[in-house]
């Protein structure tokens, strides 16, 4: 009986041990050892840690992930060495990013030291640009091995297909993620990554540092330049490039063509228009009122879009570029069409149309906007506009003070006397001339081109001393829109206009007024001579009669 009782006791202990073991095995993976069991007793649950940044991190561990990872045989404390049964330090990370960076350093780099990473320079450099976790994951650490013979692109995309970011020196964050599907839909789909990013390869990944995204993008333009030399040369002349160089927010290659989703902007005119509209909303609104936009919206094959006039890469401001040339580019038979009614008899010379094209912008007649006589300051020697910067150097005054130097009474309008005084001052330094043209006051109105039937055909709209034009004095600026100052219109009617505005002559409009007065005096003088002499002859008739003995 005692033996039975003793046997039952041992059996009971065995059962209890088995129950305990089975209980334990029910919540741990079969392969986990006792230390890990301890950790997993809590980390099997969906614990969420909320960071001060508001981001949430799950600290739940999936044992299967660890089992399938390269660290499958590691214990928890192999990596998290600062944790023990009786020790559970609390980390205070402000953000998920800080968590990734610090954990990569504390955990991964304890084994994967800089020394070991340097064996592969690419890997070492990458480790300085992104935390280990970003590429290798958390507990599901996978080896990133590129199959021998795999393409360069695949190699690059192993990392860059992930949401990698790069931090600029000024704190700006740039995504360096490249989505393969985006790349494959671009015009560069047949190119290798290293065709553009030449300094990178399977064995080379230089660590680069940029002050800002702007600086990074400036260098990105150089990548495009490697192949698109002609386009870049054109772009470098553009007002966009000049504005960029001055640190202004202006478009570069990437702004219009995108990063890796590079598309060729050529066929869809509406898309081209939309591209410019992103920045030029005011101009787009004006354009939408034009006959040009009507053609564009009707999908007419010969309809114009922004680049039709402003060009695609060498975009220039309207006063530098000869916009009339842009019109003629599409309206090829325009000279002949104008020549049907615009000629000076007895011959119908096309050059007479050129006279008008040279002196007035197309929009002066084809837009219902307010018009002005523009006088642009020119260097006579070079026959190029004299810029504000050049004037500033010549007169040794700040560019911002030049307006005050012209408009002496500061009434925001250049009077005749003020203009000639200023020109006289400049003439002591350089040979100058004023180039005239008739144009609309608001350059944006040029987008509102009206249909042919609504264009001005009445000559006296311009060829009239009382024509409704205001005066504008214009000094060009390097890489920017010109400085336009209000000017008394009658300067073109002054005798001083003859030596100063040598080649701008609009019949009626620019007539020298004093000659009308002299004409009247000359005619009256001729009549006075005739009647005066006749009068004297009448008075002296008795003398002649007496001499002839005719009394």
């Amino acid at each position, binding site marked *: 009986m005692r033996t039975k009782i003793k046997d039952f006791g041992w059996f009971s202990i065995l059962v209890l041990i088995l129950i305990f073991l089975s209980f334990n095995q029910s919540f741990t993976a079969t392969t986990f050892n006792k230390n890990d069991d301890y950790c997993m007793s809590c980390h099997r649950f969906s614990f969420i840690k909320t960071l001060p940044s508001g981001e949430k991190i799950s600290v739940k561990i999936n044992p299967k992930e660890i089992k399938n990872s390269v660290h499958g045989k590691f214990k928890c404390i192999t990596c998290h060495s600062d944790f023990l049964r009786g020790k559970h330090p609390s980390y205070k990370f402000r953000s998920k990013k800080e968590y990734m960076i610090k954990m990569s350093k504390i955990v991964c780099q304890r084994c994967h030291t800089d020394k070991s990473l340097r064996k592969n320079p690419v890997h070492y450099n990458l480790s300085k640009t992104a935390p280990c976790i970003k590429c290798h994951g958390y507990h599901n650490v996978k080896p990133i091995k590129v199959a021998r013979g795999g393409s360069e692109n695949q190699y690059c995309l192993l990392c860059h297909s992930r949401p990698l970011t790069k931090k600029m020196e000024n704190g700006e964050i740039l995504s360096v993620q490249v989505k393969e599907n985006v790349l494959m839909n671009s015009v560069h789909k047949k190119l290798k990554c290293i065709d553009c990013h030449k300094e990178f390869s399977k064995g080379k990944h230089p660590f680069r540092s940029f002050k800002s995204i702007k600086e990074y993008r400036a260098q990105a333009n150089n990548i495009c330049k490697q192949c698109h030399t002609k386009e870049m040369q054109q772009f470098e002349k553009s007002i966009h490039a000049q504005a960029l160089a001055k640190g202004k927010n202006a478009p570069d290659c990437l702004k219009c063509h995108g990063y890796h989703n590079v598309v060729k902007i050529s066929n869809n005119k509406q898309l081209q228009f939309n591209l410019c509209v992103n920045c030029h909303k005011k101009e787009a609104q004006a354009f939408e009122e034009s006959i040009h936009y009507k053609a564009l919206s009707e999908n007419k094959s010969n309809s114009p879009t922004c680049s039709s006039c402003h060009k695609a890469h060498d975009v220039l401001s309207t006063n530098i570029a000869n916009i009339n040339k842009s019109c003629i580019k599409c309206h090829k038979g325009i000279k002949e069409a104008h020549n049907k009614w615009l000629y*000076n*008899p*007895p011959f119908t*010379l096309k*050059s*007479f149309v*050129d*006279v008008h094209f*040279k002196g007035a912008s197309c929009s002066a007649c084809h837009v219902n906007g307010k018009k002005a006589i523009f006088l642009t300051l020119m260097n006579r020697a070079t026959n190029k506009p004299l810029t504000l910067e050049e004037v500033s150097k010549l007169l040794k005054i700040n560019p911002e003070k030049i307006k005050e130097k012209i408009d002496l009474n500061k009434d925001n309008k250049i009077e005749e006397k003020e203009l000639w005084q200023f020109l006289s001052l400049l003439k002591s330094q350089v040979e100058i001339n004023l180039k005239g043209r008739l144009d609309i006051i608001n350059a944006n109105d040029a987008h509102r081109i009206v249909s042919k039937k609504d264009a001005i055909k009445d*000559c*006296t709209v311009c*060829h*009239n*001393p*009382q024509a409704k034009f205001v005066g504008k004095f214009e000094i060009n600026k390097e890489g920017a829109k010109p400085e336009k100052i209000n000017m008394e219109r009658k300067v073109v009617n002054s005798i001083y*206009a*003859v*030596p100063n*505005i*040598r*080649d*701008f*002559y609009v*019949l*009626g409009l*620019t*007539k*020298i007024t004093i*000659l*009308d007065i*002299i*004409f009247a005096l*000359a*005619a009256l*003088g*001729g*009549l006075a*001579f*005739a009647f005066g*002499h*006749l009068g*004297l*002859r009448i008075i*002296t008739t008795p*003398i*002649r009669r007496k*001499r*002839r003995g005719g009394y």
Partner: protein
Amino acid sequence: MKKVYLHPLPVRIWHWVNAISFIILILTGLQIRLVDKMHWISFETAVKIHSYLGFVLLINYFIWFIYYFGTLKFFKIYVPPIWRPIEFIKRALRQVRYYAYGIMVGDENPHHPTPENKFNPLQQVAYLMIMIVCIPLQLITGLVLWDPVKFKTLGSLLGGLQIVSFIHTALWVFYAFFIFVHIYLSTLGHTPLAHIIAMITGYEEEHEEH
């Protein structure tokens, strides 16, 4: 009275075409300039007439040029005897004295026109300047203003369009004065219409005053 054949047919044709063209050109010029104040004819019509007559004047000038240079009469009639300057100046002063004083008191005109010596010294200087300087300059500047692109080089040589326009207009001012004086002086024959009739028939009555 003895009649002298003073004005050959080509000269008479040239003169009257010139006279009519000049008057109309002066008036259309006035209409073009004062389009805001005068409404005789439309601006477009004024420009058309002015342009057509400009070419008429150009062709007419060549008629004069070919006739006077072809017959070499230009040198006898228009060129003052600069090789006898003192005598010429004395004659000119006598002519001035005549118009200013002699004509009033019934003096004889010191100049007696002949086919070889048609103009008195004052006429000679005035017509030489008009025919060799003023009209060619008026025609050249007119051509430049007629089509500044076609005649760009000519315009540049003259110093630019504004200067060209200034010369053209200044000459227009001069002609406005000249035309009245010329018409008045043409009435100073032995009858008010004597010189005018001579320019129609070609015959001038001798001993009559200009």
